[in-house]
């Protein structure tokens, strides 16, 4: 009897140990179905809305998902775009309650970025929390009538909005002094030299952090620099920490990738990444696509790989992460459902 009890106890301990082992959990979690199905904590059926929008042109369309934040909260944006045709933007709170939707009568792909105040920028329009309205920016690089809008990134700091992009051999930056009204004279400037084979592939920032050493508030801006390894998909990534206070004309004069920055804020090289999905910043790390289709990696700001995880092998599935790295939002184009799923980070 005692032996039997000991054996059962031992088995339970083994099971407990195995259940805490990441590898075992990963293996047991594997599935031919998208991982987010089993990570979902909420979902919303968009079939009726989307079918109403698409009408008879149901065959060719695409979608994007964005999680954007302003000073008070995060919101989830689902963009459905006819091909060709207009597009529809659906705005949700983080519990996936549909708050508002808006039709954009342009086919040009719109990029959603974060900005100050209550205003999310939606390509050629801005969202003020209730509705979308036309947005007229005078600066040429962003966002109007530019084919590479998707390649530009924004951050906000000190009451201004910034747009950052990469030209073939340098970073460019435009500063908007008040909201998105007008750019600062003199910008964009060529502040940072870059090797021609790399490009800015994403950006993350944390507004108004207290500097643990110097005191006061700082806004670190993390640039995600992607370079190709020669083949079509594969490449490498550097995460470069800069300071928002130095934009739009930061004083860095080094070659970012080759030399790093003077104070050593360039991460180690992250190898075997691919850029079919944007690099996404969370407070748990940067989400980076890997060369194994559908598998992603969470990378620390120093370039250390924290973990690998699987979302889906369907490349058409759009997703984005919340800033805390607790949840991600993903849209399934087959079921027409938007899911909120746990990251497990």
């Amino acid at each position: 009897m005692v032996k039997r009890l000991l054996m059962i106890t031992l088995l339970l301990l083994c099971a407990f140990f195995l259940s805490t082992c990441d590898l075992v959990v990963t293996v047991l979690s594997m599935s031919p179905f998208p991982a987010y199905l089993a990570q979902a904590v909420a979902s919303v059926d968009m079939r009726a809305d989307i079918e109403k929008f698409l009408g008879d042109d149901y065959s060719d369309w695409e979608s994007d998902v964005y999680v954007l934040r302003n000073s008070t909260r995060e919101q989830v944006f689902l963009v459905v775009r006819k091909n060709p045709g207009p597009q529809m933007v659906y705005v949700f709170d983080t519990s996936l309650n549909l708050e508002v939707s808006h039709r954009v009568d342009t086919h040009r792909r719109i990029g959603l970025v974060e900005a100050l105040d209550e205003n999310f920028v939606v390509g050629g329009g801005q969202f003020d929390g209730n509705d979308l309205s036309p947005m007229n920016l005078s600066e040429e690089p962003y966002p109007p009538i530019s084919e590479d809008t998707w390649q530009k990134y924004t951050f906000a700091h000190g009451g201004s909005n910034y747009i950052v992009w990469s030209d073939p051999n340098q970073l460019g930056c435009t500063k908007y002094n008040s909201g998105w009204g007008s750019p600062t004279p003199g910008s964009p400037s060529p502040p940072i030299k870059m090797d021609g084979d790399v490009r800015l592939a994403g950006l993350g920032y944390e507004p108004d952090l207290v500097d643990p050493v110097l005191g006061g508030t700082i806004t670190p801006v993390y640039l995600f620099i992607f370079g190709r390894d020669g083949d079509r998909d594969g490449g490498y990534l550097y995460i470069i920490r800069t300071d928002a206070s130095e934009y739009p004309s930061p004083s860095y004069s080094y070659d970012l990738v080759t030399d790093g920055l003077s104070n050593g804020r360039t991460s180690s090289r992250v190898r075997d990444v691919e850029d079919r999905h944007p690099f996404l910043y969370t407070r748990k790390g940067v989400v980076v696509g890997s060369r194994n289709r559908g598998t992603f990696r969470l990378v620390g700001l120093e370039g250390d790989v924290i973990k690998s995880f699987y979302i889906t092998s369907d490349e058409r599935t759009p997703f984005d992460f919340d800033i805390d790295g607790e949840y991600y939002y993903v849209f399934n184009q087959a079921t027409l459902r938007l899911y909120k799923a746990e990251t497990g980070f």
Partner: protein
Amino acid sequence: MKYRGIAPTAAIAGVFLLITTTLWTQQAKVPGKAFKTCLFPTADLSTTDEYREYRSIISDQLRVELRNSGFTIVPREQWEPARERQSIPVGELYRGDRAVELARQVDAEIAVISFYSVEDRQLVLEIKCYDVAQNALVSGVFKSARVNLSVYNVIAEAVAELIPRIRLIGPPPSLDSPVVEKIALVSKDEGMEIYLGDQGFVGRITNGQLLLPPIPFAIDSKITIEKRKSSYHSGGETIKLKDPEMLIELKPLRKQARSATELNWTMGQLLGFGLAQRFYLNPDSFFLAGEHYFYVQHNFSDSKPVFHHDLRVLVGGYLFSGPHAALRMNLTTGLGMIVTYFGLADQPMYADFYWNVINSAFEVNFRRYMLYVRMEQKYALGAGPAHILERGWISVFGEGPSTVTFGVARKW
């Protein structure tokens, strides 16, 4: 040299046994030595030289087969002086009397001659074998065929037919040669029929045993028996006769499986299991199968699990090896449907249809059970009123390897 050196295939052993038993009383041929053999050049009796190349083909084939079968070929240099002394033309060595005479002078035991002719593109081939000591024709093979690629097959067939008969040539067994006096076969397969080469049916296992009829097999020789029983796969068994009295326990026959029940696990679907039932259209060969795999998709957090029921119908068959083989391979293909429902509230049920393009399974084949590993290639059709998977290959972790399933099956 013993006959151990001869390729111990069941077919040859069967023929050997057959001829051994039938000719014993005439020429009583006990295997046990490497016969010294004179193989004379193949003669072309055609009216033209157009088909001369067959001479070397036939001679070479005969030489190779005789050597492979353990015969000692007398080199031409040994009989050539005798031929010259007697002024026998090479072209007449297809005549039996000349060949036997020449073979005797070099102390050969066997003389093999061959000749052919081609008329109107029809080849006629004859190979003869003489027992030198008896000065007697032991065996001959006659073949004819149209001159095309099949000629080579005909030559090979002729040689293959002749070889087993040549083995029978030799002196009759001496009276003190040890022979097996009694062979008793023991088996658990009650009613199993035993066949013995040309003897054909020799008896049936009754009360667990069968006493073979008295046939003077030589000690250390081998016999091959065939075992048959209704609803069982026939089997062959080669037995070495070591003692005058042999009690031989036969290996049991394998029952013909009409169906099988499978239990399996698939990588990427480990929180569950599959049950399948096979129905053999041909026992242990071609089959239909229905399978249901239930599994839970869970990430061990606060989120709710997802439940999948994978239902499929397969048709398949075995390749390369028969039901007695320890290792077998089969291929299957079919159609399937995965029904999915959620632990999360307010979610609909989905059904994903797929084409199970090809499964290749490798089985360790036991008497009643099979252990197998199966590589599966599934292609989602992306069709149906409510589906999750888009059209494309179904695999775990994107472009990873095909799905792998491990399983066990019980045959019925």
